[in-house]
């Protein structure tokens, strides 16, 4: 599939999902990795009049629902995930997600003061992936006060889903961590 076809197909998928009947033409500003999408999306939504609060939420008054959906369409269409990562994951990616979970996510959460019970074995993790995926964030406990701020900070720090570059074999977990801390 050419880049042009990928862009057209992905933007059409967003229009369908967000129920945008006559989607405007949107030029891609940048192709990004999966772990970058949240930040560029928030920045873009702020530029469209929907700023993200410190807890990761966007206030959407009832009468702003349609403009909100349109802004989402424009922002998701402006920053597409790199085409080489835009594939449905297979068994190999589930195994990499397991490594990501035990080598990066759980240590990251524990360094942040969370206690995460013993994770499932690799075989159990893979077996359960389609029906009941294991996410250590299910065990995260944060105080009621500033709950959203604390939760969002953990989500940004301890990225739950392996980034595309790791998932699709472009770099190891260690290389990704090293690159991130640069």
């Amino acid at each position, binding site marked *: 599939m050419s880049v042009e076809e990928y862009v057209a197909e992905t933007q059409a998928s967003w229009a369908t*999902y967000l129920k945008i009947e006559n989607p405007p033409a949107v030029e891609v500003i940048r192709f990004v990795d999966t772990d970058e999408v949240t930040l560029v999306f928030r920045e873009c939504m702020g530029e469209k009049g929907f700023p993200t609060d410190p807890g*990761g939420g966007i206030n959407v008054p009832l009468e702003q629902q349609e403009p909100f959906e349109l802004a*989402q369409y424009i922002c998701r269409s402006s920053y597409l995930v790199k085409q080489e990562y*835009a594939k*449905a994951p297979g068994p190999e990616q589930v195994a990499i997600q397991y490594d990501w979970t035990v080598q990066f996510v759980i240590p990251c959460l524990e360094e942040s003061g969370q206690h995460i019970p013993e994770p499932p074995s690799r075989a159990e993790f893979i077996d359960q992936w389609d029906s009941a995926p294991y996410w*250590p*964030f299910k065990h995260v406990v944060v105080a009621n006060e500033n709950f*959203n701020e604390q939760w969002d900070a953990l989500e940004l720090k301890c990225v739950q*889903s392996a980034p595309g570059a790791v998932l699709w074999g472009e770099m190891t977990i260690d290389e990704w961590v090293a690159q991130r801390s640069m």
Partner: protein
Amino acid sequence: MKNTLVVFCATFLSIGLLASPASAAGSTSGWKECGANQRIAISSSTALGGVSSSIFSVGHQVLGGNNFNWTTAGFHKAKHNKIQGNWAISTNGTLNSGGASCE
């Protein structure tokens, strides 16, 4: 009777809007009422399923309140600044579990 109809229509319209996007591969919604000292919390567990990461999104919303969106699959949770209301979770991935609670 007229008032009842207006309330019903408003509720129906609200749920329709809240459930948007209706084409979500996974969605669930309902009404939640909490005690005076509590707020609605929504949590969900999602997976990419068969979709590409380029078109993944999961959103939590309480009508007329804050909307939380995540761009990758996972276990996500947020507390909403509402004591009661229509809530919804929608995703174009796979929704494995999700719901609202009072916390």
